[in-house]
């Protein structure tokens, strides 16, 4: 199992939220929508150029701004398609960071 933030996760990857790195305001805002430690999230997609990340939580889709998405850490599940792949996908953060 791997710990990534929402920006680093790949599209269609799912996992369990382990931490929201932020103040009470941010944590409360996210918790009201079910993004809190223990919740299962699926990343639908992320927009380039430091754009928002789309996630699905409890059957609802949300767009989360890039800066906020960086602060949500997720223990990523290994999906079936990843099973045979070498451990650890290339770090997409460097990739996205470079494109800003």
């Amino acid at each position, binding site marked *: 199992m791997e710990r990534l933030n929402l920006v680093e996760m790949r599209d269609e990857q799912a996992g369990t939220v382990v931490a929201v790195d932020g103040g009470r*305001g941010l944590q409360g805002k996210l918790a009201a929508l079910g993004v809190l430690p223990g919740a299962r999230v699926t990343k639908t997609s992320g927009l380039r*150029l430091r754009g928002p990340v789309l996630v699905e939580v409890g*059957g609802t889709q949300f*767009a*989360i*701004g*890039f800066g*906020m998405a960086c602060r949500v850490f997720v223990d990523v599940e290994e999906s079936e398609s990843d099973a045979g792949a070498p451990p650890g996908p290339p770090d997409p953060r460097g990739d996205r960071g470079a494109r800003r």
Partner: protein
Amino acid sequence: MKRILLVGNPNVGKSVVFSRLTGVRTIASNYPGTTVEFTRGFMRLGEEQAEVVDVPGCYSLDPSSRAEEVAVRMLEEGADVVVAVLDATHLERSLYLTLQLLERKLPVVVALNIWDETKHKGIEIDVGRLEEFLRVPVVPTVAITGAGIRDLVAAFSRTASPEVRPHTPAERWEDIGKIIAEVQWLHHRHHTLLERLQDASVRPLTGLPIAALVAVAVFAAVRYSGEGLINYVFNPLFEHAWRPLLERLSAWLGGAGFFHQLLIGKLFAGEIDFAQSFGLFSTGLYIPVAAVLPYILVFYLCLSLLEDSGYLPRLAVLLDVVFHRLGLHGFAVIPMILGLGCNVPGLMATRVLESRRERLIACTVLSLGVPCVALQAMIFGLLGPYGLRYVLAVYGTLAVVWLLSGLVLNRVLKGFAPELFLEIPPYRVPSARVLPGKLWLRMKGFLREAVPLVLAMVLVVNLLYAAGLFKALAELTAPVVSGLWGLPEEAVAPLILGFLRKDVAAGMLAPLKLSAEQRVIACTLLAVTFPCIAAFVVMLRELGWRDLLKAVGIMLTAAVLVGGAQNLVFILIAS
């Protein structure tokens, strides 16, 4: 009087429930001490009248946004019935707020709205079991058709406030997990076409072309349908029905004189010219009713379709990157799009933005670079005959002004750009039941606000001309207007009067002998300089004097620069 509060997440159909309960007798008002709006109305409850309040949509009762603060305060003021409106297709998310309401020991009834969609979505909910868990009445409703509303009202007498201790967020979600496991089953089914479109419209590769397509489609629809309505409906109406009456009045007034000038205006070769005569009954009625109304009708039809379909939040996601550079987040696209209709609702919609900084930026770029549909209608009218490229020159300049001013403000103002955090609703086919009502409300709003103002302005213009005031002003401003912008002296009056109403001001340009280039400059300046008086008042309310003065300073500076730059470009092209 009994007090009924409708509380729920944004976008669960609260307002539709509200209008079902109250009928049409609704009044919108400002809540004292805050700028977040709520709606209030009345309904009959047995023998007595009850007040119904549509509380702003919120996700929780932890005051982390303006809407939540308002909701909490209204709940603290007390209520006889709190209707928790839930989205049955998103039960899990909706329950969080419901649990918080129960923890506050409020008299709750649950409306499981959008019930009809659960079947298409393969969601099965055991209402009885849910009632057992929550210990309050639960009523499935379909507010759009009115199904279940009667049962909901009947349940008002069975409200309950069971004993529930305060929970932490984690505990609440744990409870929700347990409830969901017991009361809801999901059946597998294939993705519908709408759902596939849903994904395509937020991915950049497919989303941007879709957005461009939507923009072009709306623009073309407004432009050509508006023109069609004018040519085939409104112009004939004015020519064949109204002109004979006016001609009689004109003859009766003797064809000239002060009152003739006021009511009918100038005659061109002995004929009334609806676009140019400038009397109260000629141009004063023609501009709002025949020149602008058709475009408004089509624009608001398109806007309502976009709003109801659920496309706008997706546009917000796609454009977040752009808006972030302006110190805003993607959701600010909604005030901008509303502003394309009329700046007033656009400016009011900036309330959804969190910080004062954001609201200043949004209001400023909106009044600088977003022309209202009334002005746009006149731009089509003034420049259309010269060719599309002149129309596009105005739009292109405004887009550049919008972008540059936002970039600069984001640099100069202290603070940071906030993050987007937005629920993406599923696409819905706009309801044919809701659409006409919404359209009618907006048309009525325009007619009620615009027509008296336009008439008043035509009157004022005539009086000021008679008093010779414009001559003095024209001489005073000649260095900028003629020297820098390359416009004739007569253009001063319309530019200044643009403060009252943009469409009439643009109408005043028509009789002037301006070249196409000069018309482009004048139209752009009308959009950039000053918001019209209605928008100005709203800006004052939303921003306060200090920020308003900043915004006005920026607008005047921008106007001087933009008019000068356009003039320079045209001179360079010509040489």
